[in-house]
C-alpha cells in the first residue's frame, strides 16, 4: 500500500489522503477488515502533521469506509457498503469529467470519445479483478 502526497497541486493534504484510501478500498487493494496504519506511523512516513492524517481518518470513518475498533486501530469496514458503490461511481465521475474537459480543450467530439472508450473496453479482460497494470 502506498500513499503519495503532493504539495504541488493545491489540494489540501487530508483530501489527498482520503481520496487515495478510497481508491485503495474501492479497488480492493485494501480489503474489508484490513488495518490502516496508525496515525503516527503514517504521519511520519508521509512527513505530514498527524492532525492531517487524523482528519483524513475521521472523514473516511464518517463516510463509512473505515471503522475504529476498541483496540484503537482503524480498519476497513466489513462487507460491501452502499456508500462504497456510490463512492466508486463518484470516483469514476471525477475522472470522466476531467476527460471531457480535455476533449473539449482538444476539440474532439464526445462521440469520438464514446467510441474510443468502447474500443478500449474490448481490449480489456471482461472480469477485471486484481489484474491491472499500475
Amino acid at each position, binding site marked *: 500500500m502506498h500513499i503519495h502526497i503532493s504539495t504541488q497541486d*493545491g489540494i*489540501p493534504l487530508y483530501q489527498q489522503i482520503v481520496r487515495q484510501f478510497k481508491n485503495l478500498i474501492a479497488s480492493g487493494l485494501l480489503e474489508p477488515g484490513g488495518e490502516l496504519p496508525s496515525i503516527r506511523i503514517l504521519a511520519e512516513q508521509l512527513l505530514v502533521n498527524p492532525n492531517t492524517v487524523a482528519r483524513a481518518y475521521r472523514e473516511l470513518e464518517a463516510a463509512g469506509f473505515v471503522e475504529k475498533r476498541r483496540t484503537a486501530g482503524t480498519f476497513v469496514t466489513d462487507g460491501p457498503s452502499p456508500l462504497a458503490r456510490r463512492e466508486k461511481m463518484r470516483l469514476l465521475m471525477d475522472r470522466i469529467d476531467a476527460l471531457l474537459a480535455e476533449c473539449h480543450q482538444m476539440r474532439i467530439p464526445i462521440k469520438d470519445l464514446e467510441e474510443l472508450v468502447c474500443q478500449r473496453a474490448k481490449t480489456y479482460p471482461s472480469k477485471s479483478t486484481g489484474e491491472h497494470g499500475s
Partner: protein
Amino acid sequence: MTENILEIQSLRRQFGETTALDGVSLTVPKGGVFGLIGGNGAGKTTLIKHTLGLLKAQSGSVRVFGLDPVADPVGTLGRIGYLSENRELSDWMRIHQIISYTSAFYPNWDPVYAERLRSDFDLDPMANIHSLSRGQRARTGLLLALAHRPDFLILDEPSSGLDPVVRRDILGAIIRTIADEGRTVLFSSHLLDEVERVADHIAILHQGRIQLSSPMEKVLLDHKRVQYRLPAEVDRFPANGIWLLAEGFGRDWSVVTAASTEAIHEVTKAMGALIQSIEPLSLEDIFVARITAKSSAGETGS
C-alpha cells in the same frame, strides 16, 4: 473558548531607517502548528525575537501565555523551547556537556526524554559540538529545545541550509514531537512544501506586514487560478477588486483570486468574458501571488 498562546498587537520595530515590523498583529491559538512564512528579510526572525523577549516592542504589544515576555522572562521563557536559525551552540562543549548545561536552566527538564531524543537523533554524547555536521547541529538544537517539554515550541527556519535527507530527518523529528498533546508550535520557514506538510495555520509576513493569516485548509480552498478568454484584446486585465494577480496578454489571461465562486462568476458576466478553467493553487503559487500583488500595488507596471 480557545486560549491564545501568542498575541501580538500593532507591533512596530525600526532598526535605524529600516522598518522591520510595520504594525504586525498576529494571534497564535493554542495547539497545532502555526507556520510563519516569508522571504529573507521579511521580518520573521525579528518577530520571533519579540516573542522571546529578546527585543522590546517600540510600539504595540506582545503577550505570550498572556504575559509580557520582556517584563516576565521567567514566566514565559521557561515554557518556551526555541531553535534559532543559526543554531548557536557553545562550540567548546561536548554533546553530553551541553545537555547537562542547558538542563540547569529549566526546572522541568526531563533527563529521560533528553536521553531518548539523543539516541533517536543518533547523537554521540562524547562528540565535540564544533565537529558536528549541520544536520547533527540542528538535531542537537532541537533536542535542547524539546527536552524540557515546552508548551510552546518556536523553530526559526529549522531546516534552512540542510540537504534534503537531513531536512526530512528534522521534519520527521518535528512531526514526532508536535504530536504531544496540547503543545503549540510556531515554525518559520521559506520552504513552502515543508510548511504545507506541517502547519495547520499559516501567516504570510512580507515587508514587515502580515499579508494573510488563516487556517491552511482555508488558504488552499480560497485561492484559485482562473483562466480567462476576454471578449477583446487588452493590455492590462480590467481592475475589478477581486484579483490578486493577473498574468497574460491579448485575450488570454490567467488570474489569481481568493474570491468566492459566485463572486467570480458575477464579475466574469459583467466583463462578458469566458472562463476556460478554475484550478486550485499550491501554497507556493499563493505565496507568490500574495507577495507580488502587494509589492506591485504602488507601481504603474503590471
